[in-house]
Each structure stands twice: as structure tokens, then as C-alpha cells.
């Protein structure tokens, strides 16, 4: 599919309004306090779609909510024998067709990563899968990276070649539309009136925007170099000791990270007769994450935990999936209390290592 199209900016809202008839439409919306979240839009006339600020959160919570009930359980005693009775009843989400509009490349790339984990594991995570199944992604190539962005260094942006259904590029008065996966094709086929064919001039303009975008990154983060250095020698005790000295143990970096998907499962007793099995976000920087009964903890000490997190992102996922699981969105940079973010980690590793050029993972 090489067709490229043009969507006039005036036609965007009308298109979304049409899509809303059969889908949930979720887009970055700026609220009256100035914060931008991905939010379901019900009333297009009173929702401020915000494509100028980075959404504070990624799409993660739509596929892996901060907390969700997996099953309910019932228990009791058999009326005659007195034996314990116990059974589980699943509570799976309903599939809901959803259009995610205004998704940035990094966030979409993160969805591809989480797909890899949840949908290609030995067993498919039905909860993730149900939420994820009927999703259409209309992404936006980043013409102007945000302050802490470095997706160029993680090769997860500013524009993508795949993963999107439609990818839009801002050409001033119009959107340049690239068509990706089959759902994008179907969307165009269903609403052809909104689109016109792109001209050669449009394609050139798009190419120019994409080219310029790559030059606009304010952060120059040597991800490749850091990966190489870790592959050579994963210890870097001084770096991780210094980072962990400032870690506040809040878990925020993992919560905000679009590719951190560690979770906890716990039973919540509702009454004597039963309760819920609940899944919540967890963070590998917590001591309790690995502590076993009897206080034995294979990842003990704050240095070990911080190290584990960064090694997972920059080394172990390279070994496992062939690339680091950082998508360069920069959210942890702005979020971290003590500056224990991935850029700081990479910079410290690079500073500690030789001043050579970065290798590739």
C-alpha cells in the first residue's frame, strides 16, 4: 500500500465525528487545568484536542489499566461434609472498537512492544488482548519533538514506517496521510470523501518535514553507546550506586513508562464468601517486588533494584527482543523526583565509558 492521501484540516473533526458513531474515539485532550491526557471524546464541540503538548500519559492504561479485576472467587464450606469449596469466575473485558487519534510515534511503538510481550507470549493475555483487539491507531508524526524527547536515538520516531493504521503529517493547512495496516485501508474505504490523493509536491513537503524533524531534537542521547557499554560490562557499580542514591522509591518511572508492564496480582477479600483477584501496576524498583517469603530477596538493596530496571530496558530487552525497550518519550525525565531517569543513566554510562562512537544494538 503506497497510496498517500491528503486530509484537509477542516475535515478532521467531521471525520472523527463520523468515526465516533461506531467507535470510541480517544485523543489527547487538554483539560481546563492545562494537563493533557488521552481521553475519550464524547462531545467534540467541548473537547480541546491538544496536539501541541505531549500527552502526560501513554496509551498503556487503556490496554493494561492501573488496576483491574481479573476474576472473582467464591468460597465456603460444603454444607454436609464441611469441606472447603472454592472456585474462580473470570471477568474479562468486552471488546470495544476504539480509534486512538493523535498518538505519537513513541507511544505507538510502545504498543508494538507491549503487544510483543502480551500477545506473543506462550500464553496470550486475554485481558490485554480483548482491550487491544479492536484498536485503530491514527498516529501523528512528530514534526517538532518535545523538550525531553529522544526517539531518534531509540529509533522509535519521530515518524514510523509501520505499526500505524494511518500516520498523519502536519503540512500546515492539511494533513498528509500515510496508510499502514489493513484497518487504515478500511477506514479510508469507508470514508473516502474525506480524503484526496496526495500530489508529488505533498510528498516532497512531507519528506521535508520529516527530514527537518530529525534535526530538531534538543536532547542528544547516546542510547547505542550505552547499550554497547552495558553489553561489554553490565556492572557499572559507580553509576548505579549514584543513581540509586537519589531514587525515591516512588515507582513513578515504571508507572509512567509506556513499555513498563510489570504488574502485581493480589486477592482482595470482599467478605467471608469471596473476593476479587486484582491486577495492578507494579514497579521493579520496589523492594517488595522480588522479596520472597522468609525475607529472602534475590534483588536486594536499592542499587540492585535501580540497576535491574535500567539493565532490563537497555540490555536484557536487547538480548531478548533485539532492541532496548525505551522508546525515547522522555516522560520519566520530567517525572522523576531525583533525576534518576533514563537519560541521566545513559549520560552517566557514556561519561564513564570511553569517548568512542556509539555502537548499534
Amino acid at each position, binding site marked *: 500500500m503506497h497510496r498517500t492521501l491528503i486530509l484537509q484540516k477542516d475535515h478532521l473533526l467531521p471525520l472523527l465525528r463520523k468515526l465516533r458513531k461506531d467507535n470510541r474515539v480517544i485523543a489527547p485532550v487538554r483539560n*481546563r*487545568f*492545562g494537563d493533557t491526557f488521552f481521553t475519550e471524546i464524547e462531545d467534540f464541540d467541548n473537547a480541546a484536542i491538544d496536539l501541541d503538548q505531549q500527552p502526560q500519559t501513554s496509551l498503556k492504561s487503556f490496554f493494561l489499566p492501573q488496576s483491574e479485576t481479573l476474576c472473582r472467587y467464591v468460597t465456603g464450606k460444603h454444607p454436609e461434609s464441611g469441606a472447603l469449596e472454592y472456585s474462580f469466575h473470570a471477568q474479562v473485558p468486552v471488546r470495544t472498537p476504539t480509534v486512538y487519534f493523535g498518538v505519537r510515534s513513541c507511544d505507538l511503538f510502545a504498543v508494538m512492544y507491549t503487544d510483543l510481550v502480551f500477545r506473543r507470549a506462550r500464553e496470550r493475555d486475554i485481558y490485554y488482548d480483548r482491550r487491544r483487539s479492536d484498536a485503530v491507531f491514527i498516529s501523528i508524526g512528530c514534526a517538532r519533538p518535545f523538550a525531553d524527547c529522544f526517539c531518534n536515538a531509540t529509533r522509535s520516531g519521530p515518524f514510523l514506517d509501520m505499526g500505524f493504521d494511518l500516520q498523519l503529517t502536519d503540512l500546515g493547512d492539511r494533513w498528509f496521510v500515510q496508510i499502514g495496516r489493513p484497518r487504515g485501508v478500511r477506514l479510508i474505504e469507508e470514508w473516502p470523501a474525506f480524503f484526496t490523493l496526495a500530489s508529488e509536491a505533498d510528498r516532497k513537503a512531507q519528506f521535508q518535514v520529516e527530514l527537518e524533524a530529525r534535526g530538531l531534537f534538543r536532547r542528544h542521547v547516546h542510547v547505542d553507546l550505552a547499550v554497547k557499554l552495558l553489553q561489554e560490562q553490565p556492572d557499572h557499580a559507580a553509576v548505579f550506586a549514584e543513581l540509586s*542514591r*537519589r531514587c*525515591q*522509591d*516512588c*515507582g513513578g518511572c515504571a508507572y509512567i513508562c509506556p513499555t513498563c508492564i510489570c504488574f*502485581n496480582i*493480589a486477592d*482482595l477479600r470482599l467478605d467471608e464468601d469471596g473476593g476479587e483477584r*486484582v491486577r*495492578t501496576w*507494579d514497579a521493579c524498583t*520496589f*523492594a*517488595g517486588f522480588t*522479596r520472597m517469603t522468609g*525475607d529472602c530477596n534475590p534483588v536486594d538493596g536499592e542499587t540492585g533494584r535501580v540497576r535491574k530496571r535500567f539493565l532490563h530496558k537497555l540490555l536484557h530487552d536487547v538480548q531478548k527482543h533485539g532492541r532496548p525497550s525505551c522508546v525515547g518519550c522522555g516522560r520519566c525525565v520530567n517525572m522523576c*523526583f*531525583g*533525576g534518576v531517569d533514563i537519560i541521566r543513566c545513559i549520560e552517566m554510562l557514556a561519561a564513564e565509558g570511553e569517548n568512542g562512537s556509539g555502537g548499534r544494538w
Partner: protein
Amino acid sequence: MTFGSGAMTNSIAEIGEAQVILVSGSNTTETHPQIARRIYEGVDRGARLIVIDPRRTRLARHAHIHLQIRPGTDIPLLNGMMRCILDENLVDDLFVEMRTENFLALRDMLYRVDIAQCATLCGVDEEQLRLAARSYARAQRSVICYCLGVTQHVCGTANVRSYANLAMLTGHVEQEFTGVDPLRGQSNVQGACDMGALPGVLSGYQPVSDPSVRARFERAWRVELPTTPGLTVLDMTHGDGSSDDAGVRALYVMGENPALSDPDLGRVRATLAGLDFLVVADLFLTETARLADVVFPAASFAEKSGTITNSERRVQLMRQAIDPVGSSWPDHRIIIELSRRLGYAMNYQSPAEIMEEICMLTPIYGGMYHDRLDNGEGLQWPCPDRRHGSTQYLHKYSFTRGRGRFEPAGHVPPAEAAEEEFPYILVTGRVYHQYHTGTMTRRSDLANREYSRPLIEVHPDDARKLHLRSGLAARVVSRRGSCVFTVRVSERVAAGHLFATFHFAEAPVNLLTGSASDPVARCPEYKVCAVRIEREA
């Protein structure tokens, strides 16, 4: 108090701009994370960090100077520092002249102070003490943050005054990025004080003993008001339980858990059990609620709207997210209905309407209307009227009470000292993952996983001496009671000291603590309690 009001003089954001940050008696990273974050920022910008704390807290590890004093020796430390400032001509004479009073008394007292003696008494290095004094005094912008490690002593008020003396002596008060900041422990301690939930003052710190104040409230409330200041928490919860006791016979408790949080718990529980009538409104069946005659299910912060005031005097709107759980009610609705049944009708349609009355009767809250607060960040008091904006820092041109008054103080030893039978000093406090009596955090799965058991921190030297290892059970005994903790060997505490938290009902540390308290503020001495510790089978 020395300045005339009990609140942070600065805004939280200003702390990051200071050149010297002096933190005392506050485990800031764990109990006030956002303030610790500003301290980190300040240090990153080049600020000097001085930490005064008997424990080697995480913040102390980042400090340029950590004065690891013996608990309860703040006053000699500060007197030593001030003497050093005096000797080295670092006093801000102009500020002292123009803005303060009673300097001579302080000076005369300081001339009798010996710095070396102070250092010995505090258990710190004399040169470090001098270094701290110099850095604090020489910087243009120095800020002091203190928390309950300063106030929870028998000399808490004098401690606070001493910090104020230090700030005034060096002129580190009236400008942006300088000041004295008490960090408030709970979400709305500041607001509860501001609203007059105190025995001696009505809302906005207006004394009940002042007839003109009473007259104004009486007109608004259409009722005659009692004239004499009432009892403090400690007076109410530490009666002797007998019917001729001067304390109370009935208690209405809203969202508090004195049966776990108050000192000398044995006495508290006897008092509560001996009451003729106890009413508790809370989210959970707390240790206190279990003793009650009537328990009201209250709505949580997510289920009601209203305002709360943070440490930096910021009045912010809480917005209702969901309907009250079960048939719980917000506390304001409970109070309105109860009051009506007691023959005093209150009629408010909404919390906003209650706030309108507060605005009318409370000068510092004069402009705090809900519609104005609905801006995402609230307003900082004082805010006398609708046209007035937020007040970033206090005492810009003058102290609340006019001139700041120096109140010289001498060392007051803690009510209990280590002795043969009770050779260790127990310090109590909080930890990062738990909050207060744990009613909320202990029901939060992850928070409770991270810190799930009552631990007692023991210094490695003491642990060796006592044959204690991490993970073993140990019984801690004071004159008043005993509880069993799990040992955690840690260098965070100094040798001879122990640290425990009060979050756990299964090891209620306040069975051990004493109710000796500061004579002015009636703040109990949680930070010093003589105990012994022994291995539990």
C-alpha cells in the same frame, strides 16, 4: 509563634532556590517527598545542605553537613551556632535593629554559652557546628525546614523559638527564598489549625478569649459562645477514667485514631473505655471506633468536595470523583444532621456555602471562595478578599505580631534519660510507605507489601551486643508498656538509639511512649523515650 503565626513562611517551590537549606528533625524524603525534591533541586543548583537529625536519614546522606545530635539537644546546638555567629560578626544588625525586639536578652544569654560544651552535649563535632553556623549565616538566602523532630519534645516550643532566633539573628526571614518552614505532617493539619479546630482560637487564629472576636462569631452564629479556652487532645485522651476526673465524659472523634496515635496508649485506651459516650466517624473500624458507642461511616477524599490547606498555606479544592461508598456520608453532612438533632440548626447546601461563611469570619481566608479556588492550584493565605491573589511568602514587610521577638532558651533535658534499666533511647516516626495509623496505607496492597511489619531499627554495634539479627523478634520495654517488633539492623540510627514507627496496631509503639509534653504547645515527647530491648523467644 515568635513571628506570630504557625505556618510555613515560604512556598515549597522557593526551597529549591535557597543557597543554604537547613533541615532539622525531618526525614523529608520519606515524609514530605515534594519538599525533599526541592531540596535535591537546590543542592543540584549548588545549595549547601545542613541536616540536623539524630538519624542518618537518606537526606542526611546527601547533606554537606550532618549534625547527628542526641535527641532533644536542639537548643544547645542552636545556641552554640548563634554564639558562633555572634563571635564572628555574622549577625544581620540592620534586620535585628529594624524588625526585632529583645535582642539584648538573647545576646546576654549567648555570652554565657560555651560552644565546645554545646557540641559535647549534642554529641557533634565542634568544628562541624561552627561550619554549619557560618554557612547558614553567610549565605544570602538561607531557609530552615523543620518537622516533628523539633516539636515533639518537652521543649518543643523553645526549640521552635530557637530556630526562629537563628533566622532572625541572621535576617533570613523576610525575603523570598528565606524563612522558617514547619513541615506539616498530614494533608490538612494546616487547615484544621486555620479553621479553629484548636481549644484556644476560632478560625483564623482569633482567640476565643477576645470578647470582640467572640462578638463577631456570636452575631454570625446567633448563639452565645464559651469564653474559656478548652482542653487539648492530651487533656482529653489522658484522663484517669474516673468520673470525678477533670477530663471529658464524652468524645466526638472525626477521622482520628487516638487509640493508636496518642502517647502512653495504655492510659488513652483506659480513658476512652471509661467514657460515658464515644462517637467516631471514620472510613474504617479503627482501634478507636471499636470502642465507640456510635460509629458513622464517613466518605473518603474521593467521595466529597471541599478544600484542604497544605504546608505552604495553599488552599486547594478537592473534587468529588465518585459517589460515597456504601451508605457513607461526608463528615460535613454528618455534622449538620447531628447539630440539628442537638437543637442547633445548620443549613448549608454545599461545602462552597460553608466556605462563604468561613471567608466572612476569617480574615486570612477572606477571599478563598470555591469558584476562585477552582483553578487547578488554589490560593495561598493570607488572602483577605476576592481581589487579593496568592501570598507566596509571609512577613514581607512586617511580622504578624509587629516585631519579631527573640525568645532566648536554655537546654531542657528530655523527660526521660537512658538509665540502667532502660539504657536505650527510642525515637518514633514514620516511614515512606506507611501513613499515620495505617488505616489507609495498610489497606493499599503495594504500600503494605513494601513495609508490612513493625520494625525496630537497631544500630549494628548494639545488635552485636544484644545478639540481635535482622528478622528476629525483639521486645522493647519502657516504663509504661512493651511491644514486640522485628529487628532491622541499620546504620540509620546512632548507637544507643532505636527507631520504630507508629503505623502498626499489632505493635502499638505508643504503649511505650510517655505523655510528657511541651507546656505551651502540649506536643508530646514522641522523640525521646527510655527503653530496653531484649530478644523475644
